[in-house]
């Protein structure tokens, strides 16, 4: 379990670093191009118009890098305590942001439908994160290019409900039936959660008092 948790953190960090490196590379090249244009001495009118576009691009990349860094910061603090009141919607937003690069590399998109106003759950945040990561990652790894992983949240019968489904061609490689995975089910039980199947959906039910 410890190895799997370390591997999970490693993948999240690797995805984050790859994403931020790209933003930095774009900023660096955009600044470099502005410098090149100044050095070759193009007309001022062209410079002003072009430069506004470049500045917009740099600002956009900085905002994206700051946003994903905020998500990583929040993720890091999920390890601060063993039990805390968490919003499953916030946790999913965070995980999706940090997994975007993993999905993008496989050309898979995320779709989400997160119902507002859900109650909080008291749970071990990082282990719950890990559980969700395993479930979402299992969907990613079984999908072929251009697939979609959809995550929806709701509340019914006194429990929070997270439905994870996928659309697109399925490749068998890496396809694991998590409902039968002892480790994942053991983790879910420890967290007071329950994993089941509902058609194409994997459903995680979490009591709000877990």
């Amino acid at each position, binding site marked *: 379990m410890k190895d799997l948790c370390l591997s999970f953190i490693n993948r999240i960090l690797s995805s984050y670093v790859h994403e931020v490196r790209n933003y930095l*590379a774009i900023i660096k*090249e955009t600044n*470099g191009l502005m410098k090149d244009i100044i050095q070759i001495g193009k007309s001022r009118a062209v410079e002003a118009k072009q430069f506004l576009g470049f500045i917009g691009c740099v600002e956009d990349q900085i905002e994206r890098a700051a946003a994903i860094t905020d998500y990583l910061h929040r993720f890091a603090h999920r390890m601060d305590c063993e039990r805390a009141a968490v919003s499953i919607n916030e946790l999913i937003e965070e995980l999706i942001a940090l997994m975007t690069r993993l999905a993008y590399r496989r050309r898979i998109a995320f779709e989400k439908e997160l119902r507002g106003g859900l109650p909080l759950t008291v749970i071990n945040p990082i282990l719950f994160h890990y559980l969700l990561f395993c479930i979402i990652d299992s969907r990613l790894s079984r999908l072929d290019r251009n697939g979609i992983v959809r995550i929806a949240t709701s509340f019914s019968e006194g429990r929070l409900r997270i439905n994870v489904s996928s659309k697109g061609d399925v490749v068998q490689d890496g396809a694991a039936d998590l409902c039968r995975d002892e480790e994942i089910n053991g983790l879910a039980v420890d967290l007071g959660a329950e994993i089941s199947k509902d058609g194409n959906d994997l459903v995680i039910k979490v009591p709000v008092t877990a």
Partner: protein
Amino acid sequence: MARAKVLLVDDEVEFASTLSERLNIRGYDTKAVYSADAVLNKVRSDIPDVVILDLKMPGANGLDILKAIKQFNPSIEVILLTGHGSEQCTAESESGGAFDYMMKPVEIDSLTEKIEMALGKKQK
């Protein structure tokens, strides 16, 4: 004298288009492609002298693309762009026949130096 042809392959459109423009300013005839699927067609239709190839592209392994380029025309020199410069990366790029690899973000002067070295190797 004909300008050296450089093909830049990276799925980050803004990065590739900007770097491509910077290489054009430096005298290279640079084209950019933004997907792994487009690389081989582009290489076949307009043979470049040097390819600058992102190792991690969506839905593709950069090393497979490298091998396919070298299989099509071994004289095309390939410089890999990677997120990390590990010993494994050095070994993989060498075994795949890459000229060299560089870490992103790149220093433009170091990149043009590598391109010149790759062009020098081609002329030998």
